[in-house]
């Protein structure tokens, strides 16, 4: 089911079958939850990813206890219900010209009409597999095969914040302006990273995300709501 690999002297790498798959990821989350809830030893940090969990610790004693606990977990079949049901997000995205920076390239790569690309991108419920790259950036998947696209040959030096991109079978929202090679399909009116909030991140690993195509007018309305201080992230998700 998984193996526990030494990762320097202060971390373990718990490696699962190395594929991008919802079932494997569910196992990652189950082990993460067990470690968080059941283990009394202090943990320095946890990084859940597609098919791995990195567990950091401070002392040798904690490391040993975590290792023994993980070995014990292999013996039992992990209850699926143990993991927290993530939030279910419905996020507006404007797929229109000023924001869909790679519209032409994507149409050429896929041979699809733009409406078809948008229909496919909004038609799936994505799982948040991992956060990384920048604070609050959620790696989501899997995209339908027809709109799974290679990264751009030459990465952009600056992808505007809130851009929604595609790379391989993954999709995600750039929280801030950053260099990047993802193919940009549209833009979200508000950033998934709100540093001034007590909880600055929209997404947690295990959340579900669906995108909703909106017009530029609606995009601007949401921005106005946000700028007036009337926006709350609860408006865009329900608890799972």
């Amino acid at each position: 089911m998984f193996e526990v690999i030494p990762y320097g002297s202060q971390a373990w790498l718990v490696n699962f079958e190395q594929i991008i798959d919802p079932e494997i990821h569910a196992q990652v989350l189950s082990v993460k939850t067990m470690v968080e809830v059941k283990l009394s030893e202090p943990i320095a940090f946890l990084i859940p990813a597609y098919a791995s969990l990195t567990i950091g610790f401070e002392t040798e004693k904690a490391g040993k206890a975590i290792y023994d606990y993980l070995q014990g977990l292999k013996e039992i079949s992990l209850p699926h219900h143990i993991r927290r049901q993530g939030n279910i997000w419905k996020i507006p995205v404007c797929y229109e010209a000023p924001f869909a920076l790679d519209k032409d390239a994507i149409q050429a790569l896929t041979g699809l009409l733009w409406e078809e690309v948008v229909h496919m991108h909004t038609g799936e419920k994505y799982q948040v597999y991992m956060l990384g790259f920048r604070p609050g950036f959620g790696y989501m998947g899997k995209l339908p095969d027809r709109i799974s696209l290679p990264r751009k040959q030459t990465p952009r030096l600056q992808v505007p914040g809130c851009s929604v991109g595609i790379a391989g079978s993954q999709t995600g929202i750039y929280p801030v302006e950053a260099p990047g090679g993802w193919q940009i399909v549209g833009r979200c009116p508000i950033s998934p990273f709100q540093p001034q909030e007590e909880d600055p991140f929209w997404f947690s690993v295990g959340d579900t995300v669906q995108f909703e195509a909106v017009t530029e007018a609606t995009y601007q309305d949401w921005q106005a709501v946000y700028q007036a201080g009337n926006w709350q992230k609860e408006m865009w998700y329900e608890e799972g």
Partner: protein
Amino acid sequence: MRKARVEVLHPGMLTLVVDQGRQHHAAYGVPVGGALDARSARMAHALVGNSPHSPLLEITWIGPRLLFRQEVCVALTGADLSAKLDHNSFPMNRRVQVPAGSVLTFGRAKQGVRAYLAIGGTWNIPSWLGSATALPSELEYILPQSRLNKGDVLMIGPSDGNSAWPMVPEDKFRPQIEVVIHPGPEFQLFTRESLARFFSHPYQLRPESNRMGFRLKGSPLQLEKPTELISSGVMPGVMQVSHDGQPIILMADAQTSGGYPRMGVVSNEGMQQVAQWQPGTHKRFVLATKR
């Protein structure tokens, strides 16, 4: 007791307020941050009696000019950047009572790159997610005050009283040519020949290194066969190998996930040597004995 005022007459090349960082938020993609040479930072705190979680200054290469308006207790550790108090050379790795009105200056980097200046007491500075450390690149706006500029003022309040750390760790920085490294998760994916070269030839630190990653130059590491990895968690100290075979050591401000093969993880002691590595100079890597 009133607050002590420390005025920045000149900021130096890169003088940052750092602390232990924000490790607990790695799962959200937030870089750990904090002091690059954590051992020197810890020692400086212990010397002045601050908690290891307190902020202090990380002084890189060309030091600042600081005016102490009130008497304070300080300790300087890490790199030897030829510090002077007024016109006298300033002792390192010990507690020093600095008189009101004195000016601390720095000169040539004799040894290492980063010095750590702890000032005894409670620092009155903003923090984000439990740390005063700045964020890298586009996120610098979050704690802009943690990078010192000319005219900035640090206000140091009296010690909160429960921060007695009598044990001073023996972590005084002594430069070494060798850096101890543990095998990383993908160590076995590299050819034996290239690993043999890695451990028998020196590597140079390239000048385009920063607090996110240290780029090395030397004999390239080769994979047995081309491998596409699924992105996975990374942390400071991880040595990953880019497509051209050259190693990159992830530092405090690195991203929290990556897809390059992780050849090794630099030991804690080794990270002190890496943090103090002068660009253009060489070091050798030594494989850690089994823990």
